[in-house]
């Protein structure tokens, strides 16, 4: 699948935003501190930015409101509905944190749960597609949820180290979640690399009972919408290297940096935590790029890819 920049940006940013908002909703941090107030605003900005970037790839964005209507059948529609509904508790929480410096447990918890549901809906847009076998697994929403939670905890850890309260607990939780998220992703990659293709040129043409089927001529010489959208391929060697790089930058580096922050403490903790969050975000972008680039669409059985 073609890794569209707007979609990579959307899933990464909104994932981090929802993760941070969910962690803030749990009330682990002191809502009266400046860094937590900024974190609330930052989470909303990331979510809004992600949603806006997701409309960039639409052919007719002026009708985007229609996407809220088909929640009965469509995960994309469900995601849209949930994204907007989740804004309500998040706005209330942000208002009380920023203006009054207070944490509202009930609204906060409702917000956290809704953040989780929204991220789940995002993941299910991909996981529900049978035509893209790489995504069609329960591991896909699991990874999305864990990555969002780990990212949220990492960002919250930065805020906690800045404000100086609750930092150790936050950092330890972040450390655990980062590790668990990449373990889940490792399982996702293992599944992908040992996958027996559901559909083959033989099943796509129904000619398998005659013999081995090979594309002889495409319908045309140049690319079309389908080959551009679904035909993106990345060499296996390349993908393996990149996935290891993602684990190293997005997983190992943040864990080491968090450990340094916990044990060093004091002034060194803040830059270490910031660096951990940046590394994690970078690793996540690579992971998201691979998520699309590595996925093979069944239609490529008709295009020799």
């Amino acid at each position, binding site marked *: 699948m073609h890794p569209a920049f707007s979609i990579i940006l959307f899933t990464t940013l909104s994932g981090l935003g929802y993760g941070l908002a969910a962690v803030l909703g749990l009330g682990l941090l002191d809502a009266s501190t400046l860094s937590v107030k900024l974190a609330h605003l930052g989470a909303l900005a990331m979510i809004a930015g992600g949603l806006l970037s997701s409309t960039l790839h*639409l052919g007719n964005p002026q009708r*985007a409101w*229609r996407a809220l*209507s088909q929640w009965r059948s469509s995960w994309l529609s469900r995601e849209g509905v949930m994204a907007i509904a989740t804004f309500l508790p998040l706005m209330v929480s942000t208002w009380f944190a920023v203006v009054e410096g207070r944490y509202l447990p009930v609204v906060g918890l409702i917000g956290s749960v809704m953040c989780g549901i929204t991220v789940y809906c995002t993941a299910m847009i991909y996981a529900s597609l049978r035509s893209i076998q790489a995504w069609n697994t329960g591991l896909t929403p699991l990874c999305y949820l864990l990555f969002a939670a780990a990212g949220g905890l990492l960002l919250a850890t930065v805020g906690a180290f800045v404000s100086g309260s609750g930092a150790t607990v936050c950092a330890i939780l972040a450390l655990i979640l980062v590790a668990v998220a990449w373990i889940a992703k490792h399982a996702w990659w293992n599944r992908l690399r040992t996958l027996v293709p559901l559909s083959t040129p033989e099943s796509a043409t129904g000619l398998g009972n005659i013999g*081995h089927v090979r*594309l002889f001529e495409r319908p045309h010489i140049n*690319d*079309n919408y*389908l080959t551009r959208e679904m035909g993106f391929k990345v060499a296996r060697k390349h993908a393996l290297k990149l996935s290891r790089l993602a684990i190293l930058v997005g997983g190992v580096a943040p864990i080491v940096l968090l450990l340094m922050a916990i044990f060093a403490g004091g002034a060194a903790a803040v830059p270490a935590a910031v660096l951990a969050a940046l590394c994690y975000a970078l690793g996540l972008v690579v992971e998201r790029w691979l998520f699309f680039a590595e996925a093979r669409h069944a239609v490529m059985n008709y295009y020799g890819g």
Partner: protein
Amino acid sequence: MTSLPSLPTPKKLGLVIDLDVCVGCHACVISCKEWNTGGYGAALSDQDPYGAEVSGTFLNRIHTFEVVPEGGQVIGEAGEARIVHFPKSCLHCEDAPCVTVCPTGASYKRAEDGIVLVDESKCIGCGLCAWSCAYGAREMDLAAGVMKKCTLCVDRVYNETLKEIDRVPSCVRTCPANARHYGDLADPGSEVSRMVAERGGYDLMPEQGTRPTNKYLPPRPRKPLAASAGSAVLAENTDGAKGFFAWLDGMLDRI
């Protein structure tokens, strides 16, 4: 409404495509584009139509496959490899994932005849339906920003201003080899249903769980090339030569 019709549709209008007959002339591709660029919904645009990077929206495309029986050599035993031209357009699936994934209700399956259509005034051009289709039946029109797909020429098949013989999809009407057939696959007595029963018509990628309406008829078994070549084409064999050629053969042998 992007939920699928709850009951099986009373009619299942669709195509039966005969892979034994298709000669790969692409006439159906052209007639499809010609009819549908002026018919239902937005025109089928081309990008860079006279340039090197020409590309455009098509609802029907012909792929060509080479099928080699296991153990056969692609070149060495060319007689055993065969070329199959493979027309492909929307299969109007019963369990159409392109319909259920649509967030806006633009994509729908008609309850009366099972035709899958896009209401372009509702389409936001997100492309998710094209992602969900394993068959590549949907293409985004880059000029209009809406999803285009085969309409089974819904503006022809019910069009009483056309002569009855023309009330079939454009690709069916135009096929010079008669490889494409249109009809009601829910009616076991229809011509298309009988064809499917007789020839062992099958679904593409049944493992995708989409239950396509369109069916494909397999190529008929073919005798080996050597068997139909006979002795005539083999230059070193003069058995059976008569008259002047027998004399010439004999003379040339003696020289």
